């Protein structure tokens, strides 16, 4: 039993499951965020309130936190092991034909993690009461942040990086879970591409609209 | 002085092996554990032998010069492996397979041995299939076969153009299974330098650890050589560049007689030589001749691109000369026919030493996809090497040294003239006579290793159960080690000007020119002188850099070339002795009016067995070949 828990393949499997779970959450989050585009703060705040208080969502919230922790910890652990697998590197950079997205997952993932921490300070920790603020009016908090151009730009960059991460992540998850073959691989690739463009783009539109039109 | 006893069991042909097995002595499981066996070589006879003996419970030690047993050169066999399954219902049978091999070998092989290998051929296919070798299949899920040269049935099982790789990896998988079980111990990166004979019996070997340079002693109750052929003596051949004759040659010097050394198969289809730096001639499988048509222009010096030469200006010389077998004549016949055309000035390509192998008609008829399915990897490899796309332009091919039918003499037990020393696969002489048919080498190698040796070696070891583990401190081991160390020291101390490769190239040229596809009295006599001169030069002017106690690839090469320089003389001596043409051995003095090989059964229906005699010329012994079950005929493929 030890072997399955600690094998690299299993770690990847768990990472992929956790990652997929996070991917399921993103469209929900995006759906709520899109309400920021309305001039009426009510729908957004109601949704935020619902997310903060409904018991079932509470369970999902714990799962999400766990998923992030597992995904990040395993990602870093595996990366360290992977670096150890080649103690002496090459003098000439490896030019093997691979997509850049796949080679830099640890870095894109790390960037997303930093963004997540900032994001938690801005919103989630307010809800938890760790940081000061009004948890009942996230609409106002968001509006205030997005009108700061430097914040909006940082936000865009982060979602661009998230897009890179997602494009490889989704394909990779299917491969790791053993759900890819000759027939499905191109299909999965297209789905990943659509997902990796639509979701980050959806998020990125919000500060864009707010900056320009408000 | 050796005596030859082939130990062929009495009785009708199809009963011999059954009777042998029924009467063979057995060794109990408890005693097997106490008996050590050394297997040298991990190709398609060595790996099967070692794993089968391990499965039986013997304590096996296996040696190879490569880093892993999976790299033995059997891996490069392309076309297939024969068996008398008769899945195609085309009239095949064990007898037909036996007869084809005997006839293909131009009646210079032992009937009983050949019948036995044909008999076990079906079991080989069963076993390889069971251990997961992916042979080609029909849509219905059954195994499929293809035709090969020299026969009129379709009995060759294959895995695209990589059959050797697939069966070798299968054999390797059984071998590692036994290594895991602990019955087999693997010693990779070791080169056998000498055989140790104690009280007339083979009791061990001396090897060089190629990483540390240390000479090691290993003992056993019996030693099995599965060390392959000596085709690299030509320098340019289809063999792996490190394949060598040293193990067999040193066994010869310790008393194992060498049989028919001059019988070398020149394969008709290899990529032609392109320049002087070339180190290797790459084989293009004989199976290509199933669909490819061989031709040269009808006019001398026709330099038009092949596709511009119209049908009426092409000479499909194999189809013209051999209407019955056409492009599927045996290898020796196809090789000589190509040489004849090229020597007469009809050759193609920049050197004029090549003929066309054209797939135009097959592609037209079956479609490109069907051809790709069968030969895809060969076409790719050809393109990698030459840059020519054979789907649109004919391949250019020329004969190259390939397989040695000659080898250590063995009796029906596969035992050499040294008791306790066995030889299997290409390293022995036993089954292919003067010419081997395509897809028979994998069959013979695997058959020897899996299904024959385990019986015969047990029969021998049954009388050794009281012999305790062999001590490696005996005087014989010390002497063998000292001899090997002395030779290495000598090679390193010459400090001349020329590298081992330079000498190897020179030797190769002498052998190819005088003891290659065709031979004659004058050329052979001259070659003996040339080889002696070269050998003298070698020991005066060789340059081996580095030391003995380290990884030293030049030293490895030098040792091998030193042995080849001696073996070459024996090959020529044998070729001189055999004043007849048979199979691959073509003496220009002995041919039919239409230039086919002319045998002389009255004088030469024997195996020429050479015994080492120190500095004196080797002693010739003759094993008369008695043909009780087949009638000797002039081989005809017309």
């Amino acid at each position, binding site marked *: 039993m030890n072997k399955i828990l600690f094998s690299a393949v299993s770690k990847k499997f768990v990472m992929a499951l956790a990652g997929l779970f996070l991917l399921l959450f993103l469209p929900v989050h995006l759906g709520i965020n899109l309400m920021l585009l309305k001039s009426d703060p009510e729908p957004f705040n109601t949704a935020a309130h619902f997310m903060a208080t409904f018991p079932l969502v509470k369970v999902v919230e714990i799962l999400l936190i766990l998923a992030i922790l597992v995904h990040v910890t395993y990602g870093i652990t595996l990366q360290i092991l992977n670096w150890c697998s080649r103690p002496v590197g090459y003098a000439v950079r490896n030019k*093997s034909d691979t997509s850049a997205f*796949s080679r830099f997952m640890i870095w894109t993932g790390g960037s997303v993690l930093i963004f997540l921490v900032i994001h938690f300070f801005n919103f989630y920790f307010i809800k938890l009461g760790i940081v000061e603020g009004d948890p009942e009016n996230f609409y106002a908090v968001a509006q205030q942040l997005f009108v700061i151009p430097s914040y909006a730009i940082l936000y865009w960059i982060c979602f661009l990086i998230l897009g890179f991460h997602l494009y490889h992540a989704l394909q990779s998850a*299917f491969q790791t879970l053993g759900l890819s073959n000759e027939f499905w691989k191109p299909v999965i690739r297209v789905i990943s591409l659509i997902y990796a463009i639509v979701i980050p783009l959806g998020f990125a539109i919000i500060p864009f609209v707010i900056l320009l039109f408000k | 002085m050796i005596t030859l006893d082939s130990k062929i069991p009495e009785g009708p042909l199809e009963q011999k092996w059954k009777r042998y097995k029924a009467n063979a002595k057995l060794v109990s499981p408890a005693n097997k554990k106490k008996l050590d066996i050394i297997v040298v070589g991990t190709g398609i006879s060595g790996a099967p032998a070692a794993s089968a003996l391990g499965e039986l419970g013997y304590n096996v030690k296996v040696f190879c010069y490569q880093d892993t047993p999976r790299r033995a050169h059997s891996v490069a066999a392309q076309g297939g492996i024969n068996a008398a399954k008769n899945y195609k219902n085309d009239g095949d049978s064990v007898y037909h397979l036996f007869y084809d091999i005997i006839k293909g070998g131009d009646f210079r092989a032992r009937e009983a041995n050949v019948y036995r290998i044909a008999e076990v051929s079906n079991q080989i296919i069963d076993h390889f299939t069971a251990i997961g070798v992916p042979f080609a299949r029909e849509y219905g899920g059954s195994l499929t076969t293809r035709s090969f040269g020299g026969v009129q049935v379709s009995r060759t099982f294959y895995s695209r153009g990589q059959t*050797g790789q697939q069966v070798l990896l299968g054999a390797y998988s059984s071998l590692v299974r036994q290594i895991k079980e602990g019955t087999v111990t693997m010693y990779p990166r070791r080169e056998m330098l000498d055989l140790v004979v104690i009280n007339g019996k083979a009791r061990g070997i001396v090897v060089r650890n190629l990483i540390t340079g240390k000479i090691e002693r290993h003992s056993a109750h019996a030693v099995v050589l599965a060390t392959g052929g000596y085709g690299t003596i030509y320098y340019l051949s289809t063999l792996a560049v490190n394949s060598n004759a040293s193990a067999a040659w040193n066994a010869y010097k310790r008393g194992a007689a060498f049989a028919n050394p001059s019988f070398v198969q020149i394969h008709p289809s290899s990529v032609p030589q392109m320049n002087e730096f070339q180190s290797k001639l790459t084989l293009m499988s004989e199976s290509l001749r199933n669909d490819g048509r061989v031709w040269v222009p009808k006019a001398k010096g026709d330099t038009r691109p092949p596709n511009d030469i119209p049908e009426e200006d092409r000479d499909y010389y194999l189809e013209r000369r051999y209407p019955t077998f056409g492009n599927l004549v045996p290898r020796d016949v196809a090789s000589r026919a190509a040489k004849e055309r090229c020597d007469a000035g009809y050759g193609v390509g920049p050197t004029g030493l090549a003929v066309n192998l054209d797939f135009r008609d097959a592609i037209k008829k079956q479609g490109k996809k069907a051809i790709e399915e069968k030969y895809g990897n060969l076409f790719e490899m050809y393109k990698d090497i030459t840059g020519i796309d054979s789907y649109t332009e004919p391949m250019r091919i020329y004969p190259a040294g390939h397989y040695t039918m000659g080898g250590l003499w063995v009796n029906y037990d596969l035992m050499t003239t040294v008791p306790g020393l066995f030889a299997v696969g290409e390293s022995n002489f036993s089954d292919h006579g003067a010419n081997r048919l395509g897809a028979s080498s994998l069959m013979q190698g695997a058959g020897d290793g899996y299904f024959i040796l385990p019986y015969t070696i047990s029969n021998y070891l049954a009388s050794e159960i009281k012999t305790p583990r062999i001590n490696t401190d005996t005087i014989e081991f010390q002497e063998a080690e000292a001899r090997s160390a002395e030779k290495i020291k000598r090679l390193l101390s010459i400090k001349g000007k020329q*590298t081992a490769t330079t000498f190897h190239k020179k030797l190769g040229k002498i052998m190819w020119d005088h003891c290659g596809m065709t031979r004659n009295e004058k050329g052979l006599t001259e070659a003996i002188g040339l080889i002696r001169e070269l050998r003298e030069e070698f020991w005066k002017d060789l340059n081996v850099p580095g030391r003995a106690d380290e990884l030293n690839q030049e030293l490895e090469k030098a040792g091998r070339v030193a042995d080849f320089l001696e073996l070459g003389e024996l090959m020529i001596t044998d070729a001189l002795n055999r004043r007849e043409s048979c199979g691959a051995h073509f003496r220009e003095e002995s041919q039919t009016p239409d230039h086919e090989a002319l045998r002389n059964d009255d004088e030469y229906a024997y195996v020429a067995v050479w015994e080492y005699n120190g500095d004196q010329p080797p002693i010739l012994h003759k094993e008369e070949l008695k043909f009780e079950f087949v009638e000797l005929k002039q081989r005809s493929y017309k």
Partner: protein
Amino acid sequence: MKFKLKIWKQRDAHSRGSFVTYDLDGVAPEMSFIEMLTYLNETLIGKGDEPVTFEHDCHEGICGSCGMYINGYPHGPVKGLTTCLLSMRYFKDGETIVIEPWRAKPFPVIKDLMVDRTSFDKIQQAGGFISISVGAAPEANAIPVRKHSSDLAFDASVCIGCGACVAACKNASAMLFVSAKISQYALLPQGRPEGKDRVRAMIAEMDKQGFGSCSNTGACEAQCPKQIKLFNIARLNREYFKAY
């Protein structure tokens, strides 16, 4: 042709290595990369210098002995070729060629460009076989196999065990190698009885040998001289989870 060769030289496993630069003239475009290096060695020996140690044997891309990291590519810049089939016509006259050994913890350097790939044998030993002893096999056609499955099994089993997948992978992962073996047996009915034990054992051994994990980058597939496909890794993953 003329080349500047920057080659990794290392006395033995315990020594520290460094690059040595050689100028080589008179290379013919039709030489293979191995023949070019052999030619270099001949000239070095002639000058009394130490030759470069590297492995090669069959010269037809099937034994898996050769393998070096050439200008940033395992087996060089041309896809689907081993080093021994890589022809010099693919290089520009006057070019500098940097040649390094495979780099991976489980492939320690033995000398110069020669590495120890015993770890592959160890993985195969853990379970890469079907436990049927000589004599126990049923009639070959008693086990029908779907042609498509048999063809896929063959495509996987053409692996030559050269280690280019490990050399190319940023994690030095052996997943492509292991998946090729697992796939071959998983696709054939003969391999099914031991399927679960095999995949567990081989994966455990792979980790034990110190290979990295798979990031699904596809560098292995891109550099595999036998063009073994990434689907095999998906199949390996599938087989592994089914095994528990």
